[in-house]
């Protein structure tokens, strides 16, 4: 049984078709990269998996642990181990990062039949994670993502991943807006978390992040379809030749 199985997925927003027949299979222990030009549907695919309700699934199926994802709320998906690192993490003024992280951590523990932890216990969990992604502890008492730099927001996303220990992580353009040092730190963090009991899908425009997190598979998404799949070397070809040659091939 594969962890994630997407079959002929057609989805869109406000009547516009964006995904036009996606097929993808992700197994435990694997790292997949989904690459493609702007507007090809990468973020839509990530959003559909996480359960953004503005997207409408028109045809096809997404199975996660053999269950139909479309019947699950976003929070049920999260509790079942799906995690989306947002391309644009949302600012929530008035809610502290600590309160937010603890609420999420406990919601998931509760679902898994584990006891909820108090703030003191949670602090030790969060400190380990913060160190992993290189975030200063002071950010815990700041409102969620408010006033965070682009890099801090992305580190905060990966911190949440470290805390929630998802089975399937989707990193949506996590490398955008990061300088090279931040990129390395985050990549190291992700690599440490990766194991045979989880899987990672990296959605990215550039191959830069893939220098640090080695994908087992690379898929090229153009105009709502996966037009080519390969191993990590495909990413290097894309870096060299861009996406145009695939668009031509697709047209033929």
């Amino acid at each position, binding site marked *: 049984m594969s962890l994630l199985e997407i079959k002929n997925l057609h989805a869109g927003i406000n009547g516009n078709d964006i995904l036009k027949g996606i097929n993808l299979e992700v197994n435990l222990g694997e790292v997949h990269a989904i690459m493609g030009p702007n507007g090809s549907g990468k973020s839509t695919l990530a959003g559909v998996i*996480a*359960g*953004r*309700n503005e997207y409408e699934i028109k045809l096809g199926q997404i199975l996660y642990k053999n269950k139909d994802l479309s019947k699950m*709320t*976003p*929070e049920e*998906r*999260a*509790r079942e181990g799906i*995690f*989306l690192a*947002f391309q644009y*993490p*949302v600012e*929530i*003024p*008035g*809610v502290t990062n600590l*309160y*937010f992280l603890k*609420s*999420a951590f406990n*919601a*998931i523990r509760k*679902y898994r039949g584990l006891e909820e932890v108090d703030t003191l216990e949670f602090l030790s969990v969060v400190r380990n994670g913060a160190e992993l992604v290189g975030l200063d502890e002071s950010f815990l008492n700041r409102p969620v993502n408010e006033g965070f730099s682009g890099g801090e927001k992305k580190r905060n996303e990966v911190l*949440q991943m470290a805390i*929630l220990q998802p089975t399937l992580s989707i990193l949506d353009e996590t490398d955008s807006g990061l300088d090279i040092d931040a990129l390395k730190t985050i990549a190291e963090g992700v690599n440490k978390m990766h194991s045979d009991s989880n899987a990672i899908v990296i959605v990215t425009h550039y191959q830069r992040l893939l220098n640090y997190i080695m994908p087992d598979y690379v898929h090229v998404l153009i105009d709502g379809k996966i037009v080519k799949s390969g191993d990590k070397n495909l990413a290097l070809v894309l870096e060299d030749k861009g996406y145009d040659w695939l668009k031509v091939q697709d047209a033929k």
Partner: protein
Amino acid sequence: MRIESINNNLFIKNRQIVHWYKSKFYELERSSDGAILKLFYNSRQDAIEKLAEIGFPTSKDEEWKFTDISPILNFEFLLGFKANNVILKQDIEFAIIPNAVNIVFVNGIYAPELSNLNLLPKGVIACNILDSIQNYSNLIESNSRFFEKDNAFVQLNTAFWQDGAFILVQPGVDVEVPIQLVFVSNGLSYPFVSHPRNVIIAQDSSQLKLIETYVGISESYYMTNSVTKIFIGKESHVEHNKIQIEATNGFHIENRVVRLSKLSRYAANSISLGSSLARNELNINIDGEKAKCGLKGLTIGTDKQVLDDHTSIIHSGANSTSDEVYKFILSDLSHGIFNGKIVVLPNAQRTDSRQTNRTLVLSDDAKINTKPQLEIFNDDVKCTHGATVGKLDDDQIFYLRSRGISLEEAKFMLINSFASEILKSISNHEVHNFAQKFIANKLKKLISL
């Protein structure tokens, strides 16, 4: 005792009920319960005659344009003092702030057996007006009268008031322990009203933390119609938190007048949660130089509640500051009204005044009427005001849910964070927790958590 009038004409209803109150006044005067009216009789009589003359406000009255008080005029509210009040301490425990001085009134009458004055420090007098009238008659009368305007509910209170709180903080005294006034409306078999009359005086260089709590444990309809006068002496600091958690069958009317002397500070937090119709009218007079006033409000409406916050700040002292933030959270069919008047008089140079009204609307049928009203008679001032109305942010909700937090919990977190700004200004820990408990309960009900 609903008026079974075939004629639904509001004007006639208004006249009828006004004259009913007037006849009750003279009836009471003649009865054995009327002794209380001898206290300040002239002002009482003036008030009932004034009420008969002006009537209750209607929607044609600019100050009452959005607040329809006809539900109140449907009732002939009798005074509730004749109740055989069998309230036990445990019945009102939920409304009592621990580690504080608690002065309890039931249906407008002081209830010593429910009050707790053990923690009252030296240098402050805190009791009911009737018990202090002999010693402080002049102070009470002068402070009780310093502001009477053409407001029907103030007239009604002035005519009928039975008792209320009297607090006098002597010069230089810093009262650490919060003083809580608890106004309980306790069930009777008929519609009843209480008219608390409070006089609060913080003499020069003193400090006071005052809490007003209004609760109802009544099955029948009732009204609370309070009038509170607060005088803040030079360099004094009063923090005033009001938590209105009346029952759903209660009507709540408050008229508050505050005077600030030179270099004094007044910080008020008004939390309006209960009753079917509430009108909080705050009239702040910044008379002294360099005085500072902070007004914060949190009003949460559900069902068909009508919740009105009317504030007026008059700057007449130079270099004075006012900072006002009122927040509304409205769901179901509730209706919020905010009217924020700021007046800067010619002598009030270098006034710094800020006003914000923010509303979170959670349903299609809830509505807010917001009206800033700036009257500035001086060039050398800094005045800003702004009003925003918004809904919950879908992206924020999705972000929280994508981390495993339920939809209800996500909404609670966001609404609570909107509300928390007001709670933050309550300095005392016990008072803060007390207010937070009622706010959280109301929010949980609102999102059916």
